[in-house]
């Protein structure tokens, strides 16, 4: 098995990327010098190098977690190249040159035409000037005082902010993959919403058009000052092909008094073929800190891709009356494995959290919900409601639920419910009776099943997510 993995790791990037534009790829392997080299190549200040080295030292002492309900051959961390200068995509001249498979997917998802081009890497100057649009967006954001840029830019332009918040939500030695990310992250996004500002646009839209290959160790930091609010969408509904085997990203959110952050993810990484060969290992640490009173952090995720997903977007509810939310749809098919869920840590008084998780497993896949609701002795009047439902399609798939509830305060009210079911024959019969074929019926039933989560997505993504689900499960029923 590890030979297979080696192959996958060593594979050159096949999908429209060329490396000879800038062949600035660091040799494989990881040691202190690699980190110093990354830092010097990015011309980073000394404090950031110290941060990286501290994380690396912590990582060396850590063991790879094995508690998750996923199985994979051991990852060789010395067989990965930890730095590649931003690659430039070779622009295709027209849509005719794009992989027809990709076009077919776009068609099915209903992605707008200009976005299809941008996503497929076609030069879009004539029809749709992404550069000028970017500039317009940037101007509008700047006017509102919002800082939205890449992490490397932020390190140079706003070092005081980065230094103040980086690593405060996900500490240095938090977990194996987060420590690795902290040591070697190359880029990512940085977002700062100043006091009292409501971000004039969903950062999602902006981000999607400018989908960049920011590498396998992404780092995102979003800070919402007092009374600020922002909606952020990460990822993209189109299939993202990548030769990278391991993706270990870290996302940190900080919400101060009365601030609100809504973070949505639609993830459709390459999931491997129908025999489970290849695909991305998506080992991500996402955590939000409701630092101020009345703050609110909401995670919405639609996880459909990746061979293995290991991801627990969490909220630490520190401020009194703060609110944490987690809405998730995780779909696995073929040989995919997903171990995902959330952690809600109630510390402040009257903190509230809601968890809605929907898991769908088809084929030979395994889908696990793993969640923690922790009520500290200080969390007077805390309230949690969790619901996790699983749906099984086919008799070879598996659904698992591991909810942990730790309550240390009697005034807390914690509720958890879970169910596992399949698409009922009577439901199918009802649809057939009304002249709706099996495929469409299944699609409708599944969308009904996931409705609570899709409602949390921005409208256009909700539509795409709906299509994405039917696309992912195509042929797995009947």
């Amino acid at each position: 098995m590890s030979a297979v993995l080696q192959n996958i790791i060593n594979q050159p990037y096949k999908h429209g990327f060329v490396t000879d534009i800038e062949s600035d790829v660091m040799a494989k392997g990881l040691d202190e010098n690699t980190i110093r080299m990354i830092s010097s190549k990015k011309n980073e200040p000394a404090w950031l190098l110290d941060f990286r080295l501290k994380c690396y030292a912590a990582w060396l002492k850590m063991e790879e977690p094995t508690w998750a309900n996923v199985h994979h051959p051991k990852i060789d961390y010395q067989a990965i190249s930890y730095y590649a200068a931003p690659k430039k995509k070779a622009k295709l001249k027209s849509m005719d040159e794009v992989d027809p498979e990709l076009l077919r997917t776009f068609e099915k998802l209903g992605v707008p035409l200009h976005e299809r081009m941008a996503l497929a890497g076609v030069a879009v100057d004539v029809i749709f000037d992404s550069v000028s649009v970017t500039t317009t967006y940037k101007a509008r954001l700047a006017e509102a005082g919002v800082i939205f840029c890449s992490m490397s830019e932020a390190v140079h332009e706003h070092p005081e902010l980065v230094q103040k918040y980086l690593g405060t939500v996900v500490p240095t030695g938090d977990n194996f993959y987060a420590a690795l990310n902290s040591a070697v992250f190359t880029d990512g996004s940085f977002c700062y919403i100043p006091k009292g500002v409501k971000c004039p646009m969903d950062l999602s839209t902006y981000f999607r058009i400018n989908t960049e290959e920011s590498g396998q160790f992404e780092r995102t930091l979003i800070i919402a000052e007092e009374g600020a609010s922002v909606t952020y969408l990460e990822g993209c509904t189109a299939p993202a092909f990548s030769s990278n085997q391991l993706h270990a990203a870290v996302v940190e959110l900080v919400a101060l008094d009365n601030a609100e952050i809504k973070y949505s993810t639609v993830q459709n990484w390459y999931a491997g073929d129908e025999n489970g060969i290849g695909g991305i290992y998506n080992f991500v640490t996402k955590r939000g800190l409701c630092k101020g009173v009345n703050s609110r952090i909401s995670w919405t995720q639609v996880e459909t891709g990746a061979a293995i997903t290991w991801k627990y977007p969490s909220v630490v509810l520190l401020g009194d009356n703060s609110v944490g939310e987690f809405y998730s749809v995780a779909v696995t098919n073929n040989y995919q494995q997903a171990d995902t869920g959330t952690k809600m840590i109630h510390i402040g008084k009257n903190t509230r959290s809601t968890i809605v998780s929907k898991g769908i497993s088809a084929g030979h896949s395994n889908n696990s919900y793993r969640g923690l609701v922790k009520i500290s002795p200080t969390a007077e009047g805390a309230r949690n409601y969790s619901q996790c439902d699983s749906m099984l399609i086919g008799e070879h798939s598996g659904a698992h639920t591991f909810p942990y509830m730790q309550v240390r305060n009697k005034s807390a009210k914690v509720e958890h419910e879970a169910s596992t079911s399949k698409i009922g024959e009577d439901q199918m019969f009802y649809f057939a009776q009304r002249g709706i074929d099996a495929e469409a019926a299944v699609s409708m039933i599944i969308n009904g099943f996931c409705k609570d989560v899709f409602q949390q997505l921005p409208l256009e993504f909700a539509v795409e997510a709906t299509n994405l689900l039917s696309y992912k499960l195509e042929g797995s029923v009947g």
Partner: protein
Amino acid sequence: MSVAVTHQTQPANGYLATLLAGHLSAPSPTSHKGTMRGQCIAPPVLTALQVAAAERVSALNVPSTRDEEWRFTDISLLTKLSFQPVVAESTLQLADIARFTIAEAGARLVFVDGVYAPHLSHTEQAEGVTVANLAHPLEKSAAHTDVRIATYLGQLAEYKNNVFAALNTACMSDAALILLARDTAVRQPIHLLFIASKQGGVSYPRCLIRAEAGSKATVVEDYVSLQDEAYFTNTVSEFSLADNAHVHHVRVQREGMNAFHIANCAVTLARGSHYQSVSVAMGARISRYNLNVLQAAEGGECTVDGLALISERQLADTHTCIDHAKPHGISRQLHKCIIGGSAHAVFNGKVMVRPGAQRVDSQQTNRNLLLTNRAQVDTKPQLEIFADDVKCTHGATVSQLDGEEIFYLQSRGLTDVVARNLLTYAFGAEILERIPVASLKHQLEQTVLEQAGLKQSGLEQMK
């Protein structure tokens, strides 16, 4: 249970540490002389089993909170104390244990500190029913009985990776034995009473119940104490139900408040059999109950209910696993915890549906009531499903008493304290009502009333 953890911090004089350091000698037939009087039913089988278990004991470690299965239950206190097995026969008289007896019960087996007390017991050797202790020679002991015992004893309760089950299997000197022949129904409940009387004692109670096809019985497994000092009870029970057998299992753990109680119970269900259990945990400083139900054939049914009523510094841990290995199984579970003082309740309820076990219908509910701010609860209802045509649900709640309900009762003239106690009692009574033995149910209800403070408040009379 992981074996990778090492325990350097244990003092060498701890009882478990001594045992696990390899001082547990494999039992030889002569070592049984003290306790197993007369002729042993199947010494070679028992000896082989005990040697195998002793080997496992020396290979395994005491679990710590670093092991997932013991994450919330810290038993380091237990490992630090030293305990002595009791070998002397008890001098207790019937009057001493009168308050623990059950009026409805037919047969009664009494074990004092793990040693069988024939003068307190009432065995039964009726047509088709055997209720006796394993070591005691039975009048009509037939060769096929020996074979049956060997088939089930130590075969249902997994001891290979469970240090406490291994310890019990290696150290047991006797066992309570219930054998039900085909199509026999025992109307009166069978009472298995385990009494702890010695401070610092350790006992290894063991029960084996084999219900042949179509048989029916009610078994009360009862752990009580005559003193309040520290002692250690490590028990294993095995239930084997043949086709269409029906066993009602009532388990009452009312050990002393400084006791350590670690129990493993394994149940195997054949086609169409029905296992119904109510377990009540009230005593012990630290208690742990592992219940594993295996639905080994189609159409098995189990109802597994539980109540933990704890206060002060008690810790009650219940781990259940319902394993649906075959199709058309049904399981129902309601587990409740009432936690006062600075007590700590742990619940881990696993429901597993194996590949191919279609049409399984499973429901699990866990409700926890926190009475004080120092009370703690850790709960983890867990589903592992590998078949698509199933109906599985679980739910868990944690809360305090509802303000509106208290207000309602106050508006009817009850004081705040009485209203609270009444609601607490009602919360627990839902489980106690499921006990099919009236006098035992009444006894336990009294205990809950006492604990809830309702007796002083005069509500008892009102009721």
